[in-house]
């Protein structure tokens, strides 16, 4: 037989595709497969599309003729086998192999190809009938109809029940096959066939006697042949997958099987069922295929021995009927047992295979897990509940340079050995204690310690371990994980060092540093500050969280404290920095310090922190004070020098009235000493003496007032009123000299600090100078006085139209000032007065004539600020 498994017919789905294909192409057209062979098309529209489709589908599913021919041949041979085995010749009632072949073929073939196979079977059976059975044609046809019904029913039921393709490899499939194909389906055949025999009276068989024989014959045929047929169909093109050993086993089994079968069936062995062990052997070891082949062989041997009469199933005609049934039962039970055992074996094999695959998969998973554990960039370790290490992952082994087995030493446990070998001596005790505690209590282990690397270098590790518990809560294992945190620890250490350095630097620099949060509470004082506190504040600890006010009160000079507090509060309020100078209270008095306050801001500009630094500037301040005093002394010395220069002028001023007094005294003396004494003249002269002496006293008084070293007389005054007073003083003289005085004072003249009398004298002196300068010749004498602010000084100009100044550089020297009459004040004195007011006095030439004396007085800065 050369039937290819897939050549028997196409699958349902292919058929459906073909059907759809045809329906879509319902109209006339070329290229349609089988179109020319379709009778429907030839005859027009006489049959419906559906029928035409089904027909075309059946047509398209026709089996290869070779397969059909082989099927027919096998069917005929099967009939021949049944005929030869029929104990009652002519009945055709015996093992009926064609039923098995028929069902197996239909089970395997596409349902749409079934008509072809039914047709083929019909041909074969009618041909066999013609050869051997010689049954009347209607009866033969009826019997065939029964057989066909049986095959179609059986195949349909099996296909419905078992999943395709039907391989009879599970117990369920086998049982379904046995019950449906070998049990239920032959009912149809037996009923129809027995009825036909009874109806036509063939072989004088009654329906009741024929039916069981018919049924059991067909059932046995199905049981024996259908599995073989399925095996052949399914494995036709399959390669032999048996190993040499299996082939050997198959051969040995075949020999034993043949031997036992021959011996038992030929009567040498007492019991035909002795064949069961090798049969089951075949079923167990070679499963379905082995069972099918063995059953077939058994059936053939049985047939041969039965035909030759050597079988125990042969015998005299009375017992033939009984034997017939026994034979068929024997074959049926054997087939049933073999198939069931094969299916069980198959299932067992499948289970074993699955188990093996599961084991393999499990092993793969385990390997994968193991690799994973080794790949984790950490140390993974496992301890027994007692703490004995049982596993280190690869990284840990590589790191330590030893594995758990290396820790097995005489006398001490693995744990102790591990601690001794790997943990830093400084950490070993703590490590051991902590781990012991965890082992005893079941708490999680977590610790940092130094672990010795294989090369002897210790690395900081962060280690954790947790217990794994069983259902009862008992600890089964401890699993630990250990990270190398050496870099982190080094970084932390570096950070700590850097912080310490910074701290030391802050403590070492000779300044006091503080910082505060924006709310203003002090949060940090450097060491110098704290030392300061301790030195100054009695029991500083009482001020746990000192407030700024308290601190300032304790630490700052009472005169400076309010200002300092105000400045600080302003800073905190406005967010601006500031710098201030004040006196700290120190252990031995007060010292000047400069304190600067600056905020640090974040990106948004909000103040994050306040920083203050206080620098001792006491020595600088004292040095500056000394310098200022020296400067004052120098100024006094300068003034003294100026006074020395002026002494000449003063002498002149005093000598003038003195000279008059002396001369008058002599004159008086002469008038009185004359004969007769001129009392009248003497009296007049004496009066003049008194007048001039008073004048001299005035001069002395004025000089005293001029050089009185007091700044108390200085007041903040308006220059305009001083000018008005001076003008009043010279008004009479000006009228006498025919000189007009004009005063021009700009509005908003700032106040100046001045000695009213001194400045008045300067003004009178300058005005009189101007008037005297205009005596000669000038008829329209005008003295212009102008006052205006320039920068931070007030400038006063006294302008005349006189003969001008010939030597403006020397005019202020004492020598050149000796021309005054009344007041007796030289320009040198004027300059001295102005300079003592921190001002300046100079002279400029006028165009076209005259001179302008100009002096400045500084604006009173204190009053201004």
């Amino acid at each position, binding site marked *: 037989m050369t039937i290819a498994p897939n050549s028997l017919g196409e699958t349902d789905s292919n058929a459906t595709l073909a059907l759809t294909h045809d329906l879509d192409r319902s109209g006339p057209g070329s290229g349609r497969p089988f179109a020319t062979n379709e009778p429907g098309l030839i005859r027009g529209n006489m049959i419906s599309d559906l029928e035409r489709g089904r027909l075309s589908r059946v047509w398209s599913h026709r089996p290869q003729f070779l397969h059909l021919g082989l099927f027919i041949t096998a069917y005929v041979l099967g009939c021949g086998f049944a005929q030869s085995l029929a104990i009652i010749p002519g009945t055709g009632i015996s093992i009926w192999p064609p039923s098995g072949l028929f069902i197996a073929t239909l089970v395997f073939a596409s349902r749409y190809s079934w008509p072809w196979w039914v047709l083929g079977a019909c041909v074969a059976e009618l041909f066999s009938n013609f050869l051997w059975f010689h049954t009347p044609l209607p009866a033969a046809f009826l019997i065939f109809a029964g057989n066909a019904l049986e095959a179609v029913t059986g195949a349909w039921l099996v296909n419905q029940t078992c999943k395709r393709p039907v391989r009879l490899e599970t117990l369920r499939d086998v049982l379904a096959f046995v019950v449906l194909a070998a049990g239920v389906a032959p009912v149809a055949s037996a009923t129809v066939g027995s009825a036909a025999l009874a109806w036509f009276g063939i072989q004088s068989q009654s329906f009741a006697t024929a039916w069981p024989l018919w049924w059991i014959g067909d059932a046995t045929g199905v049981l024996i042949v259908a599995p073989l047929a399925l095996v052949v169909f399914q494995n036709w093109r399959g390669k032999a997958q048996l190993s040499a050993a299996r082939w050997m086993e198959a051969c040995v089994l075949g020999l034993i099987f043949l031997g036992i079968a021959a011996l038992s069936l030929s009567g040498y062995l007492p019991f035909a069922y002795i064949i069961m062990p090798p049969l089951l052997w075949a079923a167990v070891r070679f499963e379905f295929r082995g069972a099918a082949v063995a059953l077939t062989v058994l059936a053939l041997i049985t047939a041969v021995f039965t035909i030759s009469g050597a079988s125990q199933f042969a015998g005299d005609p009375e017992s033939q009927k009984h034997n017939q049934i026994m034979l068929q039962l024997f074959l049926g039970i054997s087939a049933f047992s073999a198939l069931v055992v094969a299916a069980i074996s198959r299932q067992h094999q499948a289970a074993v295979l699955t188990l093996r695959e599961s084991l393999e998969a499990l092993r793969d998973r385990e390997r994968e897990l193991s690799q994973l554990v080794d790949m984790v960039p950490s140390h993974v370790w496992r301890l027994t509940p007692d703490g004995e290490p049982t596993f280190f992952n690869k990284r840990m082994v590589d790191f330590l340079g030893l594995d758990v087995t290396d820790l097995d030493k005489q006398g001490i446990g693995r744990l102790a050995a591990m601690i001794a070998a790997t943990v830093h001596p400084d950490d070993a005790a703590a490590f051991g204690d902590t781990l012991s505690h965890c082992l005893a209590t079941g708490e999680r282990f977590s610790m940092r310690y130094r672990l010795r690397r294989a090369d002897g270098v210790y690395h900081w590790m962060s280690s954790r371990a947790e217990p794994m518990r069983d259902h009862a809560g008992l600890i089964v294992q401890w699993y630990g994980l250990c990270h190398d945190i050496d870099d982190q620890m080094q970084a932390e250490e570096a950070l700590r060092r850097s912080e310490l350095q910074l701290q030391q630097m802050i403590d070492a620099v000779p300044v006091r540093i503080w910082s505060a949060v924006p709310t203003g509470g002090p949060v940090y004082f450097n060491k110098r500050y704290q030392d300061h506190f301790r030195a100054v504040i009695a029991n500083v600890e009482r001020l746990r969280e000192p407030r700024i006010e308290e601190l300032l009160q304790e630490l700052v000079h009472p005169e400076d404290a309010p200002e300092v507090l105000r400045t600080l509060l302003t800073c905190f309020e406005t967010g601006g920095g500031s710098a201030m100078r004040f006196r700290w209270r120190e252990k031995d008095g007060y010292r000047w310090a400069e304190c600067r306050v600056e905020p640090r801001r974040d990106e948004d500009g909000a103040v994050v922190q306040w920083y203050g630094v206080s620098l001792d500037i006491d020595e600088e301040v004292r040095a500056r004070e000394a310098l200022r005093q020296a400067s004052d002394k120098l100024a006094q010395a300068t003034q003294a020098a100026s006074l020395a220069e002026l002494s*000449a002028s003063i*002498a*002149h001023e005093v*000598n*003038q*009235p*003195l*000279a*008059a*007094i*002396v*001369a*008058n*005294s*002599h*004159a008086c*003396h*002469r*008038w009185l000493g*004359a004969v007769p004494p*001129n009392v009248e*003249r003497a009296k*007049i*002269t004496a009066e*003049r003496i008194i*007048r*001039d002496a008073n*004048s001299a006293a005035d001069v002395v008084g004025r000089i005293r007032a001029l050089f009185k070293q007091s700044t108390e007389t200085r007041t903040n005054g308006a220059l305009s009123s001083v000018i008005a007073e001076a003008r009043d003083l010279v008004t009479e003289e000006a009228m006498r000299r025919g000189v007009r005085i004009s005063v021009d004072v700009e509005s908003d003249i700032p106040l100046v600090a001045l000695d009213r009398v001194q400045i008045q004298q300067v003004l009178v002196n300058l005005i009189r100078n101007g008037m*005297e300068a205009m005596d*000669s010749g000038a008829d329209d004498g005008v003295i212009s006085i102008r006052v205006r602010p320039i920068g931070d000084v007030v400038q006063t100009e006294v302008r005349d139209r006189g003969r001008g100044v010939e030597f403006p550089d020397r005019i202020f020297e004492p020598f050149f000032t*000796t*021309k005054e*009459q009344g007041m007796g004040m030289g320009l040198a004195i004027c300059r001295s007065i102005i300079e003592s007011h921190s001002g300046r006095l100079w002279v400029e030439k006028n165009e076209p004539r005259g001179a302008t004396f100009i002096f400045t007085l500084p604006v009173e800065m204190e009053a201004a600020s």
Partner: protein
Amino acid sequence: MSKRRPVVAIVDDDPRLLESLEDLLESAGYVARSFSSPGALLVSGLSGLDMLITDIGMPGMDGFELRDLVKKARPDLPVFLITGRHEIVDQHRAKGIGGLFCKPFDGQALLAAIGDALRNPKTEPKHDS
């Protein structure tokens, strides 16, 4: 007391001194003619004068200039200089210049010197009060 009284001109910008000198000279029997400035003297003229006494420090022309000017017109006219500035007197005496008097001067000495100068106009006064 026999002939006419000698006329002495006085130039000084201080009216009190002019007044006192005039009084002193009159008490001694001289005729005193007072001028508040050299200009006033020159306008009045030098004729009829027997003697000139002038201050040194004055606005405009000072005493030395006046003396030099007068000496050109009347080389015979004795001229006395008076001043309140002692350093000037010291300066000129060091140069051997005579006829210098410091304020306050001794009235008797001045009158004696005037008398000497009028009696013997050729000789320079030598006193030093």
